[in-house]
């Protein structure tokens, strides 16, 4: 039960971080957290189905569900790649606008459009 609460907390913190935070880097970190929260959720519900790791060394049959673990390897690397690209974008935006605060960038963009 405690696990579900912790996952719920992770979800809440990351969703709040994505939408309400003003700094771009904080938004990217929150998006990464949301991705990790979904991954942990997947693996947690996979682990409810058994006790042992899905490596058939002995004659162990009560193994955990291997499918979520295989899927989440891909999801983790996808999360890394998106974060790397987002940080690349932020670096370039910082180089051009001199700030990573969202409000300031939007104001500068708005001023340039006039």
């Amino acid at each position, binding site marked *: 039960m405690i696990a579900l609460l912790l996952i719920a907390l992770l979800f809440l913190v990351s969703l709040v971080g994505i939408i309400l935070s003003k700094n771009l880097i904080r938004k990217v970190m929150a998006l990464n957290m949301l991705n990790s929260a979904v991954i942990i959720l997947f693996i947690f519900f996979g682990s409810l189905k058994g006790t042992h790791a899905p*490596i058939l060394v002995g004659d162990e049959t009560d193994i955990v569900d291997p499918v979520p673990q295989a899927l989440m390897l891909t999801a983790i690397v996808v999360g890394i790649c998106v974060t*790397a690209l987002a940080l690349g974008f932020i*670096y370039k935006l910082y180089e051009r606008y001199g700030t990573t605060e969202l409000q300031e960038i939007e104001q500068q963009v708005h001023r340039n459009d006039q």
Partner: protein
Amino acid sequence: MKKTNILDVVSRKLSPFILLFGVYLVTFGHISPGGGFQGGVALASGLLLILLAQGPAVLKRTFSLEGISLVEVFGYGLFLLAGLAGFLWGVGFLSPILLPPRTIFILNIVIGAKVGAGITLICWHLFLEGEDSE
């Protein structure tokens, strides 16, 4: 940041073992816990330890930037060829053509090399970017 020799000693001694552990994870991926991804990330962390502790010059002596991007490009190509080989053998794309343990083993090594090279390149370029702009 001030360079202390603790950092030098630890990173020089530790990173070979991290690389060795990464290679172990990749090659024994289908028997013991581990596999292409985890092994590749362990390899990348070994390389990045040197990069961060010693700076790019030391790393360039053994692993050149172009070399790593070549590894990555041909790792991607090898995986595609493994898939196409299945198709050319008439068995269908990405279906194993060799005896059971061999295809997984080869694919594991290709994935390990590729993920390792990929993550090192990302961090190296972001690091170099910081280096130039100081």
